[in-house]
């Protein structure tokens, strides 16, 4: 651990350390919590999120599985219906598609199709997103597929403290949660993280930065990009509000709509392909709920409708310049 203690009850950690801390905290707190997946055992996971857990809690609480995403998630569904609190790791979100049936048709439907007789309180953790030179199979942001699925919650942290608090809340949640981790910022930027018990409620957005002229809606690794853009815009005399959604399902519409009513302008920033991405849903909500407050079009700054590139990754990922250009568009009216 490179985390350092600054003041009592708080440590400065990276996001990956905060995730590890959340898992350890909940495994100590609740012996129904079981962590499993490919290489999460003695090896500690491909990014180290489960480092030390196998040693500390033993083989029954933290174990390796065969390389089969449908098997990992399917087994998690079985553990959850039996009364455990499974936390499955899928090494990269790009590899989750073989488990899609288990997530969409089994985990997400168990409560509904059984009339509440059986429930599926499981967490599927998976690193997602670009910015690590990972190419097509280690960079995708496929959150929209899961947001389109009734019965699933979708959570994406953007700070170490939120990563811990949201992960603990996800593990304690009575419904299946896709917990998507922006791997680009796993080790970028440390932050203070409360030690021990720390929860952040699902369904509450965070005003990452207050402003009055334009709202940026973002999540995951796009939050720091938006914060940098907000700094740059401030130099041009524009006051930018950055809203970190934190959970895409359930969505905190109230905070978003209130922010846009206040600023009258909105740029939605996400790194997934633009068409039918989560930003489209946000734009539709704003059109339904507060179109009369808008002084310009809701602008989407997103990834392109291409497969995720390797060499040209820097062109694909929304960056500060593209966000600023998006802000300009909202002022062009």
């Amino acid at each position, binding site marked *: 651990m490179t985390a350092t203690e600054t003041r009592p009850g708080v440590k400065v950690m990276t996001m990956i350390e905060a995730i590890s801390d959340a898992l350890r905290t909940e495994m100590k707190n609740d012996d129904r919590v079981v962590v499993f997946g490919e290489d999460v055992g003695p090896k500690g996971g491909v990014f180290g999120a489960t480092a030390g857990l196998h040693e500390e809690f033993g083989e029954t609480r933290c174990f390796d599985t065969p390389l089969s995403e449908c098997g990992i998630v*399917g087994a998690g569904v*079985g553990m959850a219906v039996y009364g*455990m609190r499974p936390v499955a790791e899928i090494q990269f979100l790009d590899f989750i598609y073989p488990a899609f049936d288990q997530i969409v048709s089994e985990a997400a439907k168990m409560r*509904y199709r059984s009339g*509440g007789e059986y429930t599926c309180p499981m967490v599927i953790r998976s690193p997602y997103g670009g910015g690590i030179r990972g190419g097509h199979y280690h960079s995708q942001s496929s959150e929209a597929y899961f947001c389109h699925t009734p019965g699933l919650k979708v959570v994406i942290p953007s700070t170490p403290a939120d990563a811990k608090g949201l992960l603990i809340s996800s593990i304690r949640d009575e419904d299946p949660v896709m917990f998507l981790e922006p791997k680009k910022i796993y080790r970028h930027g440390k932050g203070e993280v409360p030690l021990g018990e720390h929860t952040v409620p699902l369904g509450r957005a965070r005003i990452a930065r207050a402003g009055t002229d334009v709202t940026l809606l973002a999540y995951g690794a796009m939050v720091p990009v938006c914060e940098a853009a907000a700094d740059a815009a401030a130099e041009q005399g524009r006051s930018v509000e950055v809203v970190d959604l934190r959970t895409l399902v359930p*969505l905190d519409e109230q905070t978003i709509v209130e922010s846009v009513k206040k600023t009258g302008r909105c740029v939605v920033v996400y790194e997934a392909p633009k068409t039918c991405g989560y930003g489209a849903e946000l734009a539709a909500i704003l059109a339904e709920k507060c179109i009369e407050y808008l002084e310009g079009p809701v602008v989407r700054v997103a990834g392109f409708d291409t497969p995720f590139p390797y060499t040209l990754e820097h062109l694909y990922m929304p960056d500060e310049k593209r966000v600023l250009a998006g802000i300009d568009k909202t002022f062009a009216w």
Partner: protein
Amino acid sequence: MTTDLVVVLDADGRALRGRAPKLASEQLTAIYDAMVRSRVLDEGASELGPDELSHYEPTHGREAIDVGATFALQDSDWIVPRKHQPAALLARGVLFEELANAWLGKIEDPTMGRQLPGHYSFRSANFLSTSSTAGSHLSHAVGAGIGARARGDDTVFLTFCDVQGTSSNDFHAGLNLAAVHKAPVVFVVEHAPWEASERETASATIAAKGAAYGIPGVRVDGHDVLAVYRACREAVDRARRGDGPTLVEACTWLTDGDTPAWRCEDPIKRFEQHLAHQKLWDAAIGQRHFDTATAELAEAIALARTAGDPDTESLFDDVFMNLSPQLREQRRELARTATTTTIQP
């Protein structure tokens, strides 16, 4: 190929020497009654029109498999079913009335009328909610087994699929994971004649696939309820001891020499002959079982027809534990436009 087949009863219903499982006469009668009820259920279903019962797959011919396997369990053990397994539920004491409510999607249906008929969920019987897919539930049994062991429970998980299910990704994922983790699971594959096996597998038997996973594979005569019971009971005991999973192939497609043939045999008739040898059955006793079940089913269907549909607002329940703000809003919208609704806008 038939030499390795587990058989207890010969064609005349006589138990082969030393093969009969130790079952009290009450248990034998209970097994018979569950098989009869399943047959009666098929007949009752055929009398309902498609408007009432949109979907039904008869159990006829495979009663011995679902009933024999279920009787090998303790009550605390779980069934992780494939679709259309009412016989397993009847073997666990679920009533016709409960099945009829599920068929008609009525308010008393535990699934609130949310699933096609045949996709049962009965927590009261430790019977997991059913999916439509052929194999996705197999890994649920494995995960539940791993979870039970982590908790120190000795629960065993019995799961079923058909031959098509053995082609699914989940069959491989489930059996492989179960074998690696010695999960307490019994996989029963119903090898029925109407499944074109040559289209699904080039393997001579399904049981042979067990060897590839490093687990026992057993073939059993699927018309012989005591053989199914015997093979599953051994597998259940093995699982409970911690020795891991077993693959049981219950055949109603048997090969005589080189010719695959559907031996059109009635598992109930064979068992009746056996019970007759035990002085537990005669034609009058049999008729009583059929008549009682038929009358009970007719009453259950009549009752279900008078039961109400699920409440309108239940459409939005059980998506999550609590209504999300979005679902609350959609419920309000429906309340404004629906012609019949119990929802308060």
